[in-house]
């Protein structure tokens, strides 16, 4: 939903439409339950409107997230209901009306509009090289929550303050770090666009200002007479937020003994067990899930209350998307779980847990025919053989012999 000044963002919105999204525009003060009625994983773009609609509250947005709807939020410089929402996600925002200012590099735009160089691989959400972007808005200081994915960091020379035109002054800046001051938002630890990957897979991104998506900045040149990377940046942010990039899922999980193909209902101590999982990644250009063998650090845990075994699950050559490993079932019997728990910044988290009992060997599951028992085997077998031979000889022998001995006695 984008209200006022839609034409300012036409490049961004056209890009979204070209990516196959349907766009709905709603005026800011609409009373209709536009936001809550979505059931399918749609997206909602909440812009920096002065007076947001009655149904855009922090609670409604959190509810959207819990329904796996992805949200992209642009924060206004003035205080708004979206500020406490950002605080819920461990984003500490500066006081109202303190936009990000930078006096370097020397340029002819006002200090509130600054170019930012985007390093390759600086954020997992940015998968392409991005030219320097123009930014205007507020920064945020990040908490230590590992679910946060910083996308764009502020340059070291920037800080948040009222401009000298309004009421900013050097003394105010120095006062802010004294006791009782509200602190100074400054430096490269600030994040201007931050994503948050919720545990249910929904993504929400807070961008410090909506101007970064505007046409004007998309066409503005950065210093080397090259077009800014704003359009590419907006596209990448939208792609990450709306679940196009870095989206994984587990298709199937299977386990069996080393030489078998069907899963066992239960395993015995010291069995060699093979565990495999099939993982796909969403391909946005083709619009379907494709097997993905690029995870290098997938791990499997064989757990009963605590992990007994943790091994790596390497991809299998020749089988795209398949990761497999084999290991020896522990000595302890009990109910174990095969746990795959893969969480990386920027990627959807993969979780899978398969319960399987491990029993001690049955009475005839132990090793047999041990070399230590050879004396006993020979003893028992020779007893049987001796009995058989004796009965054969007794039955087959001449009766006369006995009769003769009896006869001699009678005489």
């Amino acid at each position, binding site marked *: 939903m984008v209200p006022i000044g839609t034409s300012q963002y036409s490049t961004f919105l056209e890009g979204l439409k070209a990516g196959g999204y349907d766009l709905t525009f709603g005026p800011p003060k609409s009373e209709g339950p536009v936001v809550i009625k979505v059931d399918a994983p749609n997206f909602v773009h909440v812009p920096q409107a002065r007076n947001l609609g009655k149904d855009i509250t922090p609670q409604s947005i959190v509810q959207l997230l819990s329904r796996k709807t992805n949200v992209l939020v642009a924060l206004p410089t003035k205080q708004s209901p979206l500020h406490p929402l950002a605080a819920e996600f461990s984003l500490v925002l500066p006081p109202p009306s303190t936009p990000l200012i930078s006096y370097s590099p020397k340029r002819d735009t006002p200090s509130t509009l600054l170019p930012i160089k985007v390093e390759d691989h600086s954020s997992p959400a940015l998968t392409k090289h991005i030219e320097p972007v123009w930014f205007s808005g507020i920064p945020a200081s990040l908490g230590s929550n590992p679910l946060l994915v910083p996308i764009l960091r502020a340059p070291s*020379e920037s800080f948040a303050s009222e401009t000298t035109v309004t009421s900013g002054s050097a003394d105010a800046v120095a006062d802010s770090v004294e006791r009782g001051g509200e602190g100074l938002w400054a430096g490269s630890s600030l994040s201007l666009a931050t994503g948050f990957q919720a545990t249910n897979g929904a993504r929400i991104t807070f961008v410090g200002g909506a101007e970064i998506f505007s046409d004007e900045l998309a066409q503005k040149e950065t210093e080397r007479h090259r077009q800014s990377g704003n359009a590419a940046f907006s596209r990448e942010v939208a792609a990450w937020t709306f679940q196009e990039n870095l989206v994984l899922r587990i298709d199937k999980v299977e386990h069996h003994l080393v030489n078998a193909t069907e899963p066992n209902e239960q395993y015995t101590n010291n069995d060699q067990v093979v565990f495999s999982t099939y993982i796909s990644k969403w391909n946005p250009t083709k619009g379907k899930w494709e097997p993905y063998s690029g995870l290098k650090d997938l791990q499997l845990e064989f757990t009963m209350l605590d992990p007994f075994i943790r091994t790596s699950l390497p991809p299998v050559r020749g089988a795209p998307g398949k990761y497999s490993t084999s290991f020896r079932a522990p000595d302890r019997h009990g109910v174990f779980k095969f746990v795959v728990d893969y969480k990386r910044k920027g990627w959807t988290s993969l979780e899978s847990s398969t319960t399987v009992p491990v029993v001690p060997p049955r009475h005839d599951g132990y090793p047999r025919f*041990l070399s230590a028992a050879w004396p006993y085997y020979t003893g028992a077998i020779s007893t049987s053989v001796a009995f058989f031979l004796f009965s054969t000889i007794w039955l087959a*022998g001449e009766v006369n*012999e006995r009769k003769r001995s009896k006869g001699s006695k009678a005489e």
Partner: protein
Amino acid sequence: MFFRSFGLLLLAAAAQASILTLKSPRFVVSDSIGTQLRAEPISLEHRTASPVKLGGRDTLKLTFQVVEKEDGKGVQPHQTFLRFYDEVTGEEGIQPIRVASNGKAKFDLNPSKPPLSLPPTPKTASGEVNPLQLTLLIGSPEHEPLSIRLFDLVLPPSQPAPVHPDEIKFHLQEELFHTFRPDQKVPNKFISLVFSGIALAPWVVLLGLWSQVAPAPTNLLSPFILPFILSLGAFETLLFTYWVKLKLFDVLLYGAGLGLVTIFTGRQALASISAQRKD
């Protein structure tokens, strides 16, 4: 023409006036008593080569004055920051410095009362502490921005940065292995062979004595005796097979059938022997 050149001069002056510089930048390291351990001016052309080491109770005092390059007039810039940067971990801290309206500034750093913005300096694996790069960032709306790399600072070791408890799940975790019970030890095979030999020793005696005493098996192939002998052999074979691979109920099944056969063959055999005896 005079006015034009005057105008150009003014323009040039204005352009020049927008560049800032520092006048007499200095740093002094003094210990808790007050003796100066190190006092040097800071050069704007090249960085102070040796890093400044600060003990737990020492104080670092930084003094300078921000002036315009052209006429030396003191300036109070909007932004005068001291940036601490740890190159190895990427931690950064920004500390604003209070500058008076005439441009004079001084900043004290005492590790026993550290400013909140100071990044953590934990001990690394090698036991050393990473040096912090100090940079002075000066920004003002009317002037060009200024960024001066000062010396490197080595602080006493501190606690590491706090880490969220879930953070470990987001990286590769260490592998766990289960310690299995060691395999059962079996004694030497030679010993087993020797004792098997001892178990077979009575055969020598038995076969020796039998060769003296046993009657010749003349009736072996008679149709009365042979079936019974074969049944006995079958029973022995059944028991051996049970030991090797059969289960209990299988062997009971076979045993029941074989037993029935053996009853008849046995009766036949014994009847024939008793008949022979009556002769």
